[in-house]
Each structure stands twice: as C-alpha cells, then as structure tokens.
C-alpha cells in the first residue's frame, strides 16, 4: 500500500498537479525560425550589420575619430583595395589604422573602408527611423479606420479640424493674424459641436446649426481614400520633390521616407482590425468597461502586429535602398558625411579607373537588403501558420 502511494507521489508532484514541459510562444516561434536556413542567414547578417553600424557610429564620428572617413590624402588617390599606403609621403597621423587600404581609396584619397563604416550607420538609422515613423502612422490610421470604420464624419467636425489645422499651419508659416482667426473660428465650431453633439441628450438642435451635423462620409472612406491617394503618387519622385524643396539633411530624408511609406502598414492593420473587432474578446473587453482607445491600442494592436512586423522588416530594406538612391542622385545626405549612396554616386565617375568605388557599396547594399528580405520572409512564415512546413 505504501509503495503505491509513493509511486503516485513521484508521478504527480505538488499535490496532483502534473507539470508538463512548457514552451513560451517565443520559444516555439524561434524553434520554427531556426529551421529556415536562409532566414537564419538573414538574421545573422542583420545582427552583424547592426553591430558594424553601431561601432561605425562610435569609431568614425566626432572631432578626432579612430577611423577618419573625411581625411583627404591627394597623393594616395584611387588606390585599389588591399594596397599598402606609401609611408614616405604620408604624415604619421594620415596612415590608415589598418595599415592597408582595405577597400582602396577614392578620388580624394579618402579611405573607402572608413567611409563605408560611417555609411553603415546612416543606412541603419535611415532604415529604422523611417520604418518606425511609417509603422506608427500606419498602425494609428489603420487602427482607427478599422475600428471606427463605419462612424460618420459630419460637416462640423471636418470644418473644425480644417480650420484648426489650417490656422496652426498659418501661424507657423508667419500669417499670424489669419492663423489666429482661423484657430478661433475652429475652436468656436468645435465648442458648438461639443455643446450640442451629445446625441443622448434629447434636445432639438436649433435651426441653422443642424447643417453642421450633416454626415459627409465615413471614417473608413477618409482613411482608405488617403491611403489610395498616397499610393497614387510615384513615391520616389514625391520624395525627390520634397527633398529638393527642404534643406538637405539625414533627418529630412528619414522623415520624408517615413511619411511616404506608411500605407502598407495602414492597410494591414485595417484589414486585421476588421476581423478583430468582431472577436469575442473585444466585446468582452467592452463589457468590462475598457475604453475604446485602450481596446484599440492595447488589446487589438498586439493581435494585428504580425503582418506589420513582416512588412516593416522588408520596409527597412526598401528605405535603405531609397536613401541610397537619393544619395546617388545627389539629393541625399550632404557631404562630407559618407553614405553608401553617395560613395556609389561619387564612384560612377571612375567606373573604369576605380571599379571598387562602385563595387564595394553596391555589394554592401545588395547584401543588407537581401538579408532583410530573407529575414522578413522567414518571419512571415513563422508568424503565419498557414505558410509553415511547406
């Protein structure tokens, strides 16, 4: 009898609760991801690129950087990769740190390795910041479009927001008097709306004001319309125009790329939200008294993030390409700061004399973009169970 009990005790520890080995969702997904060799290669290159870019930031910026990408050695111009510097003509501080020109030198004798090193940081930040902006805008607009889709926008709200927005822009651009007037008018319209718009208060709306409550179109029409309009523009040329008008700086480029590439994320999130908002857990959250904003951003967005994450990864690759393209056309980051695009752009003048000036940044862009795409594809397969094991 004792023996039986002991046996039971060992099979069911802690008072009968059988512990099963547990895997978190992350462990499960990681297990699947690891099987995909191409995606793993992508991830490794991604991590390596990240480390290189961050070290590049540390070692190539500042007043006296370890690798100086801007150091001009005219006597050493257009040296091929792996060539040794001519120590007789160089001052000691001009000798490259590695002892050789790993990737050669350009037409001003600048070390291409240092310049590539510096450019990797630019590419990384452009990729991440631009996609970050795009995802934030996309999730916000897509979420609102998907959740509040069928709500109507009335004439009053539209008028108020146009007046307020226009007024603030007016003030910022210098037309203070007109701007203040518009803001005041907008605030007045908003006040009228709030005062009378409480639909549950069963008061008749006075004559003349009822026109403010004329429903124009639904939120969904506004947001999908905005997405479609943005998609109509050939975005690269839109970016070119904007960059030509604004002062050239790396931040302008990040913001402009971000502002013109949020449509994919918005569409994904909207589509996910259309199905998520009918789910029981959303009704359950509402029945618990959770506010609409909290439902959207805390309960629904995490459920809708999988496709966004995938498109963001691939979006980073696109943003890096766009930045390189802009720099290649001369609209990008102003010199002397190096980016992969402007090294390439510079190199095209010496295509036959110094092919490494185009080859090195070209291959770098190729590898990084390919790695991000492979990583994104792998992520898509893991996060979408329908694509698994095929």
């Amino acid at each position, binding site marked *: 009898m004792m023996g039986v009990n002991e046996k039971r005790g060992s099979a069911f520890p*802690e008072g009968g*609760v059988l512990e099963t080995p*547990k895997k978190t*969702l992350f462990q499960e997904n990681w297990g699947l991801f690891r099987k995909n060799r191409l995606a793993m290669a992508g991830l490794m290159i991604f991590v390596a690129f990240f480390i290189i870019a961050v070290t590049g930031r540390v070692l190539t910026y500042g007043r006296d950087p370890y690798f100086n990408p801007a150091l001009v050695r005219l006597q050493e111009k257009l040296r091929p990769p792996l060539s040794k510097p001519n120590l007789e003509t160089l001052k000691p501080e001009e000798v490259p740190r590695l002892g050789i020109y790993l990737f050669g030198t350009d037409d001003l004798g600048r070390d291409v390795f240092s310049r590539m090193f510096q450019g990797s940081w630019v590419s990384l930040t452009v990729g991440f910041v631009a996609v970050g902006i795009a995802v934030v805008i996309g999730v916000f607009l897509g979420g609102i479009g998907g959740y509040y889709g*069928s709500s109507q926008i009335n004439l009053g709200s539209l008028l108020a927001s146009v007046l307020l927005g226009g007024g603030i822009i007016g003030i910022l651009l210098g037309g203070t008097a007109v701007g203040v007037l518009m803001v005041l008018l907008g605030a007045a319209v908003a006040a009228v709306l709030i005062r009378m718009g*409480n639909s*549950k208060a069963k008061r008749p709306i006075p004559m003349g004001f009822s026109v403010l409550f004329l429903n124009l179109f639904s939120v969904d029409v506004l947001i999908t319309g905005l997405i479609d309009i943005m998609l109509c523009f050939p975005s690269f040329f839109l970016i070119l125009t904007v960059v030509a008008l604004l002062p050239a700086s790396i931040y302008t480029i990040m913001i402009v790329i971000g502002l013109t590439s949020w449509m994919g994320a918005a569409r994904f999130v909207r589509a996910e939200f259309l199905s998520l908002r009918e*789910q*029981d*857990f959303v*009704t*359950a*959250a*509402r*029945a*618990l*008294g*959770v*506010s*609409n904003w909290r439902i959207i951003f805390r*309960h629904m967005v*995490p*459920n809708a993030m999988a496709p966004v994450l995938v498109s963001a990864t691939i979006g980073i690759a696109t943003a890096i390409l766009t930045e390189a393209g802009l720099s290649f056309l001369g609209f990008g980051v102003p010199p002397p700061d190096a980016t992969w695009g402007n090294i390439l752009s510079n190199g095209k003048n010496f295509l036959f004399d110094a092919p490494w000036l185009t080859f090195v940044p070209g291959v770098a862009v190729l590898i990084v973009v390919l790695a991000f795409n492979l990583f994104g594809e792998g992520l898509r397969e893991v996060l979408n169970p329908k694509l698994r094991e095929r």
Partner: protein
Amino acid sequence: MALRNEILLSVHDLKVFFHSDNTVSRAVDGVSYDVREGETVCLVGESGCGKTVSALAILGLVPQPPGEIPGGEILFKGKNLLDLDEEALQEIRGKEISMIFQEPMTSLNPVFTIGDQIEEAITTHDTVEKTEAHRMTVELLTDVGIASPEERMRDYPHNLSGGQRQRVMIAMSLACKPDLVIADEPTTALDVTIQDQILHLFRELKEKRQMALLYITHNLAVVAEIADRIHVMYAGIFAEVGNVEQIFRNPCHPYTMGLLASLPSRARKGQPLYSIPGAVPDPAYKPQGCPFHPRCPYVQENCRREFPEMCDFEDHHFARCPVTYRQRKGS
C-alpha cells in the same frame, strides 16, 4: 418566494430592432422583467429568439447602426441605462454590471497572460497598487477554483482548457464585485461534467457575494438547477414567466409545453423524441397575431389575428396565451 428583495434591474417594454437593406428584424419586441438583488433570473429560448440581444442592450453593446432601440427603458438602480452616454456606460460596465460570454475559447485575448487580463479588469475601475491587484487576482482565481493560481496567472489562454478559461472569464467578471452578472450561455461550449462544475461555482459565488445573476441559456436542465425566476422567450417576446415549480410542473403556454415534451427524459424508450413542428419565424417576417400560432397545436381563429395578452394564471405566473387561460379558468 423570491420576491423579497429590492428591485435592482427593471426592464420595461424593451425593443431592439436591426435594420438591413429593406427589412427590419424585430429581434427583441417588447420584453419586461425585473431582477431583484441576489436573485437568479433565467432567459430561456431557442437560438435567435433575442436572448443575447436583450442582454447586450442592458450594457449598451448593441451595435448602432444596424441596431436600433426604438422603445423601452432599462432602469438600473433607478437610472435609465438607455439615456447614458458612452462614458457613463463604461463606468457601469464591469463595475456594477458585468457579463460572461458563451465562448470561453475566443473571449480571452490570445496575446496576454490571464493574470494580465484579470488585473486589467481590476485596474480599469479601481486605482489599486500593482501588488494589490496581483493579490486580488490570486484571490479571484482561488475563488473560481483554479488550482495553483500563481502559476496559472502566467499562462496564456491557449494553455488552459475550456472549463479553466470559463473560470477565468468568471473571475474577470467578478473582479470589481458587480451587483449584477449577466451570463450569456456560459456553459454551452463546455461538456456536461464541466457544465455541472461551473453551475455549482455560480451557485456558490452567488451565496458568497450576494450578487444577482441574469442567466441566459437554451438548456432547460440548467434552468431547473439554478433559476429563481424563468422567462421563456419566443421570437422576441416572453411566452411564459414563472418560477421553476410553476414552469416545469404547470406549463401554461403551448410553446413551453412543447419544449418540456421534447426533453429526452420525458420520452419513452423506443419512441422517437417529440419535436415542435415548424421552425422559429424569421425575425424580419413574423406572423401576424400570436408569433407561435403557425406551430401551435391549440391554435384558434383569434390567434391568427390578435397579438395575445399576458394572462395571469396564478401567483406571479404569467403566460401569453388566452386560449389556455380560458380553458383553465373558464370552465
């Protein structure tokens, strides 16, 4: 018998319509009932008879449009919930009235641990410390009979079984100690043994917390277990109202009689089960007169023309059938 306490929720002539292209579905077509403190009131009926919609209307969760509440009032502690705006309703939802849904599989958010979700239910209405919320969550999970709550709190919904998830849902609905809990077919998706456990849990919790329960189901066996008062719904109206004894021993509406006759326990061995002929009418095209008349074995000429009155059979036992009323009382 159960009429001793104060009225907590009083629904008067509630109507909920749904508009589609050219038709109006009268999902709930004028129902009135009271829920008293500490009482269990059951709404029983077939699928599509308006049970769930009438419950959603209490919390203001009927989507409008396409839904519309053209008439009636829902008085909760003297306030008409239909007049409140969204913010005021959010204050009541979960805090004073909470709801448990039919599908425990989909009613929990798949990306958060159940501990997070219960803590959220607590912190939505009360400002409490993180550690305090944690302690309350453990207590709630213990109350609803979840073993080793500390560990289960770190689990995601997919780690739990259906019964455990429904227990978690119940814990969430109890988080702010509401006065009224609406349970919308909470045991339908569960198997019979778990169903029994959950019903026991409801009874236990009701004793312990002195809350009222509005229980919606299509399962007569469940009703017999827990109800103080029963409202039998058919096509958006109440066919019969009474307590368990009255409804089960002395059904007065032909629909209730049909429902009881079709219970397997009443069938004799070897005989086919009884079923009410016909089907529930489309809520957009209800028959004139008594909505049950096309299926009623006792139908008379009047039933096809006139909408039947609620008839008072005995002490708080009503049925919407003048024909049986005349039979029982007249002769």
